[in-house]
C-alpha cells in the first residue's frame, strides 16, 4: 500500500512535468481550472484554435497521443506512463475535448482494421490535431440498441465497387468540427441484426453528407444529426469484411471502456468549498448536521471513485490487467453530479434559479452542471446499459431474453403502440 512512483515512473514524471511546465498555455490555466462539468468552454480566446495549438505542440514533441504507437504519431507510452501523463497534464487536458473520440475510439479502430497505407496517411494528422474525427454510430432507431441501426449501404449499380449510403445518424459529438468519420451501416437486412452490418470511414466533406446541430436541453449544441443522401464511399474505405461491422464496432467500444486514468469528475471539491462560504442562519452551511450528512455521502463517492481508479492504475503499474472495478466510474459519477448540483442549488434557496450575470457563484457552475448532467447518465452507455454490463460481465448474470436474435432484421417489429 503506497502512492509512490517506481524510480522509472518518477523519472518519467519529472521529464513530462518539466516539458508541460515549459510548454503549456499557462495564460488559460485559471479559466481551465474552474471548469466544472457543463463548462461552456473558454471565452478568452477561440476554443478550437487553443485546442489545436496545444495538440500540435504536444505532437511535435512526441507527446501527441500518449498511448498510440510512435509510427502513427503517438508517444508510445506504456499504460502507466499514459496515466502519469494525464495526471501531469492536469487542467490542460480540458483542451483535448475535440480530439478524444478520435484518439480513444476512431484511431484505435483504424489501427486494427485499416490498411497500412491508410493508417500512415490518416493517423498522424489525427494525432497532430490537424484533422478531427467523429463516430457515426447512434441513430434515431438505435442508441442503447445500437445494432438496430437502419442507415443503408448498397453497392453502386455502376460496377465501380463503391457503396451508396442513405440514412440518418444522431448524437454525433463534434460532427460539425470533424474532417473524418467512422460510419457503421446496414448492408444486409435479410440477416439477423448483428450480422448484416458493415463499417466504413469517410470524409465529412463527401457530397450528400449534411450536418445539423441538435439544440440540447441545456441550450448548448455539441451533438449533431448527420444525414446521408446518396453518399458515395469507395470500397477501399471499408473496415473489415462486408457484414463484419459489429465485430469492428466492438474494437471501438472496447477502447471506450479502456480509458483508465481519465477520472470521472463528481463536483465534490467545489461543493465543499461552496458549503464553507454560503451561510444558513448566520453560520457556514458546512456546520449544519443535515448538510454534513449530505456532503459525507458525496465525499465517499468522490473518494471511492478516486481510489478505485488508483487500484486500476496499481494493476497497470505492475504490468497486470486491471479488474472490472473501473466499470463503475460513469455510473456513480453521472448521477452523483446530478444530485450534487440539485443540492448546491437547494442551499442557494430561491436564488438558486439564477444563472449568468445575476448568479454570484463562480460562472454559474452548479446551474451549468444541473442542466448538463441528464446527458451524463445517457451518453457513452446509459446507466441502465452500464448496470446490465456490470450484472452480466462482472457478476456473471444471464442476459435478458431476446426476441430479436436470429430473426432477419427486416422482420423485427419497429412500432410500439399503433
Amino acid at each position: 500500500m503506497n502512492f509512490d512512483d517506481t524510480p522509472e515512473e518518477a523519472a518519467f514524471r519529472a521529464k513530462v512535468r518539466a516539458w508541460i511546465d515549459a510548454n503549456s498555455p499557462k495564460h488559460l490555466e485559471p479559466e481551465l481550472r474552474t471548469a466544472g462539468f457543463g463548462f461552456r468552454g473558454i471565452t478568452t480566446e477561440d476554443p478550437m484554435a487553443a485546442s489545436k495549438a496545444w495538440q500540435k505542440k504536444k505532437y511535435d514533441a512526441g507527446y501527441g497521443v500518449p498511448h498510440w504507437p510512435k509510427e502513427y504519431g503517438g508517444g508510445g507510452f506504456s499504460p502507466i506512463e499514459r496515466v502519469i501523463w494525464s495526471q501531469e497534464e492536469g487542467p490542460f487536458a480540458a483542451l483535448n475535448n475535440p480530439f478524444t473520440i478520435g484518439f480513444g475510439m476512431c484511431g484505435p479502430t483504424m489501427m486494427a482494421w485499416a490498411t497500412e497505407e491508410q493508417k500512415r496517411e490518416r493517423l498522424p494528422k489525427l494525432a497532430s490535431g490537424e484533422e478531427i474525427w467523429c463516430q457515426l454510430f447512434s441513430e434515431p432507431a438505435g442508441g442503447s440498441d445500437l445494432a438496430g441501426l437502419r442507415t443503408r449501404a448498397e453497392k453502386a449499380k455502376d460496377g465501380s465497387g463503391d457503396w451508396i449510403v442513405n440514412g440518418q445518424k444522431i448524437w454525433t459529438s463534434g460532427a460539425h468540427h470533424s474532417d473524418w468519420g467512422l460510419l457503421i451501416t446496414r448492408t444486409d437486412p435479410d440477416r439477423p441484426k448483428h450480422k448484416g452490418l458493415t463499417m466504413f470511414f469517410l470524409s465529412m466533406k463527401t457530397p450528400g453528407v449534411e450536418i445539423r446541430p441538435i439544440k440540447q436541453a441545456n441550450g448548448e449544441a455539441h451533438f449533431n444529426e448527420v444525414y446521408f443522401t446518396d453518399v458515395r464511399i469507395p470500397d477501399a474505405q471499408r473496415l473489415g469484411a462486408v457484414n463484419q461491422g459489429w465485430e469492428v464496432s466492438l474494437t471501438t467500444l472496447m477502447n471506450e471502456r479502456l480509458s483508465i486514468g481519465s477520472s470521472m469528475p463528481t463536483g465534490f471539491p467545489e461543493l465543499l468549498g461552496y458549503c464553507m462560504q454560503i451561510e444558513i442562519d448566520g453560520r457556514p452551511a458546512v456546520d449544519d448536521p443535515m448538510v454534513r450528512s449530505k456532503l459525507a455521502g458525496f465525499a465517499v463517492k468522490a473518494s471511492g471513485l478516486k481510489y478505485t481508479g488508483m487500484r486500476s492504475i496499481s494493476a497497470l503499474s505492475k504490468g497486470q490487467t486491471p479488474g472490472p472495478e473501473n466499470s463503475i466510474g460513469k455510473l456513480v459519477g453521472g448521477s452523483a453530479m446530478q444530485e450534487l448540483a440539485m443540492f448546491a442549488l437547494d442551499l442557494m434557496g430561491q436564488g438558486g434559479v439564477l444563472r449568468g450575470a445575476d448568479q454570484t457563484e463562480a460562472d454559474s457552475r452548479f446551474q451549468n452542471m444541473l442542466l448538463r448532467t441528464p446527458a451524463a447518465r445517457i451518453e457513452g452507455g446509459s446507466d441502465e446499459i452500464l448496470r446490465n454490463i456490470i450484472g452480466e460481465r462482472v457478476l456473471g448474470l444471464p442476459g435478458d431474453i431476446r426476441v430479436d436474435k436470429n430473426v432477419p432484421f427486416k422482420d423485427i417489429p419497429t412500432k410500439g403502440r399503433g
Partner: protein
Amino acid sequence: MDLDFSDDQKQLRDQIRRFLTDRCPSTAVRAILEGPEPYDRALYQGLAEMGLLGAAIPEAYGGVGLGHLELCVLAEELGRADAPVPVSSSIYLAAEFLLAAGSEAQKQAWLPKLASGEAVGTFAFAERPGRVTEAAIRARVEGGRLSGQKIPVPDGDSADIAIVAARSGGEVGLFLVELDGTGVTREAVETIDPTRSHARITFDGAPAEPLGASRGWEVIERVLDRAAVLIAFEQVGGADRALEMARDYALDRMAFGRQLGSFQAIKHMLADMYVSATLARSNAYYGAWALSTGAAELPVAAATARVSATQAFQHCAKNNIQVHGGMGFTWAFDCHLYYRRSNLLALALGSLSTWEDLLIERMRRQNEPAAA
C-alpha cells in the same frame, strides 16, 4: 503506486479464508446465535495459534509484529465469515489502547495475553442511547475507584479486562479495570445480533488504574480512528459475502420460467450492490494505507472508509434478503446473519451519522487555509 495488498498478504488472506471456511461455517455462527456461549472459544484459540491476534502487536509484547495491513486482511475475512469472536474488542480496541497509551508494565502484563488469546479485552465507552461525546461520560474515578454504568459493552460479559472511559478531576481519562475483580457486576444483554455478545457493566468502587498519562479524549479519538479502518474491512468482507449470496441465488433460482438474475429489476439491484461494495473496498484501502503508514490523513481516511463501508454493508445485506424473497426472511437462510451484523457494525464505534459528521468536520479543517 500500489494501492493493493502484497502477494504475501494475499497468501495470508487465502490461508485465513481456508481456515474460516473450515472452522467457521454458518453452523458455527448459529451455535453462538442460538446457544449460551458468548463467543466461539475454539475458533478464537485457532486464530491465536495462527499468530493472527498478535499480527500487529510487537514481538516484545508477545505478538508477531507483522503490521496493521495484515490485521486489515484478517478483519476482512472475519467480516466475510460473520465470525462470532471478540477480535474487534480485544485487538482493534484493547490492545491498541494499551499500545497507544499504556505504561510499560501494563503492556507487559496484558499484551502477551491478548495476543495469545489467553485473555480478552474490551473498551467500555457508551453509557446510554445517543452519541458518546466527551460531555456524555458520567462514570467517574475517585481515589483509584471507578463508579458508574457502561452499556452496551461489546464482549463485556466475557472479557477479562476493560479499558474504561471515565471522568477524573473534570477530564475524561482512560482506566484499566480487571472485570473479575471487586466492585464489578456484569450481565449479558439482548441485542439485534446475538452472534456478538454485549453486556451491561456496573462499577461500584472497582479498582481502576490510569492507562498511562496521556490525555484521554485525544487517545480515544486516535484509537477509534484506527479501529474504524479495521471495522470497515469487516464490513467490506460482509458486503462482499452478502453480494455473493444474492448473486448465487439469482443464478440458481428460477421464476416465470427463467433465471431470477435475468430480470433487470434484480440484475440492476445486484449491479448497484457491486458498485457500493467496490467504492467501499477502495475507500477501505485508502484507510489501510493511512493506518499502516501513520499518515497525517488518517482521520479523514478512517472516517471515509467507515462511512463508505457502513453504507455498503447495510445496502448489500438488506438487498440480499430482497433478492431471496420470502426465503430470505426465514431463520433457516443465512441472510439475516449478515443483516444483523451489518446493522450491529453500523453502530460500533459511533454510528453512521457520527462518522459523517466527523468526516466533514475534518475535511473542512483540512480545507480551511485554502478557502481563506
